[in-house]
């Protein structure tokens, strides 16, 4: 399965990549803003996306809406510091399959990815 990692923090992109390496997902790219993420999404059609919300150019929720228009079967895990219930509900409403609040540990991310992959891993 193809993976796209989207976060405006390079440290978080590196951490996510490192934490999920055991899943043998094929990393097709990483993006630091929503516009770059959409371009990679259109080109590489990832099956799994980890997506931050607060980002320059295009925020994660707007990016999620566009991704769902292109491929509603893509499994998107929102990873965000925005911890209020309204934000997580909004993400799920627009098609995200999961929501992991920051800060997170390696174990928490692995559990979320496992849940996201379900019986496809």
């Amino acid at each position, binding site marked *: 399965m193809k993976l796209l990692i989207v976060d405006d*923090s*390079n*440290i978080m992109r590196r951490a996510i990549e*490192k934490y999920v390496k055991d899943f043998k997902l094929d990393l097709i790219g990483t993006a630091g803003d929503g516009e770059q993420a959409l371009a990679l999404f259109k080109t590489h059609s990832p099956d799994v996306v980890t997506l931050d919300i*607060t980002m320059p150019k295009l925020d994660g929720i707007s990016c999620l809406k566009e991704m769902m228009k292109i491929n509603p079967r893509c499994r998107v895990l929102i990873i965000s*510091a925005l*911890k*209020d219930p*309204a934000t997580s509900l909004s993400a799920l409403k627009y098609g995200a399959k999961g929501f992991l609040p920051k800060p997170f540990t390696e174990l928490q991310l692995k559990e979320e990815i496992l849940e996201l992959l379900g019986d496809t891993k």
Partner: protein
Amino acid sequence: MKEEEIKGFIHTVTSYFNQITEIPAIMGLPYIKDNKTVTYDFTGVIGISGNRKGAVYFTASKQLLLDFGHFILGDDQLDDDALYDLIGEMVNTITGNMRELFGSTFTISVPIIMKGTIEDIVIQLKPPVFIIPIKWKEHTCHLGIGLE
């Protein structure tokens, strides 16, 4: 700002350090910033709009960021660019988590990062600005909050 809001920030910071490092951060007594601004090697500022207006900043030494970054990335190398990034992520996480208390109309900007001594952080901060000193391991850092 209300006392419960200050306590909310303190709780968020202590939880953050504890969750990532399992080493507790000790909070000092909050005080109101005077004309002098104390900053460490790296400072991240987040602008706030929506139901509250102002800004929040987090300032820390290079060594604190190197130590903290080690808990996230293990032995991977962290250059100055990575530390710029890390201070931004830290202030973003602390401030974003505060939406749990302030609600979804507490809107945060992407972080602005500064390096070195800064004469005064006045842009966007709404007085009175509360400073929360934080001690983690042998390092000192602090959070500044200036919200209407």
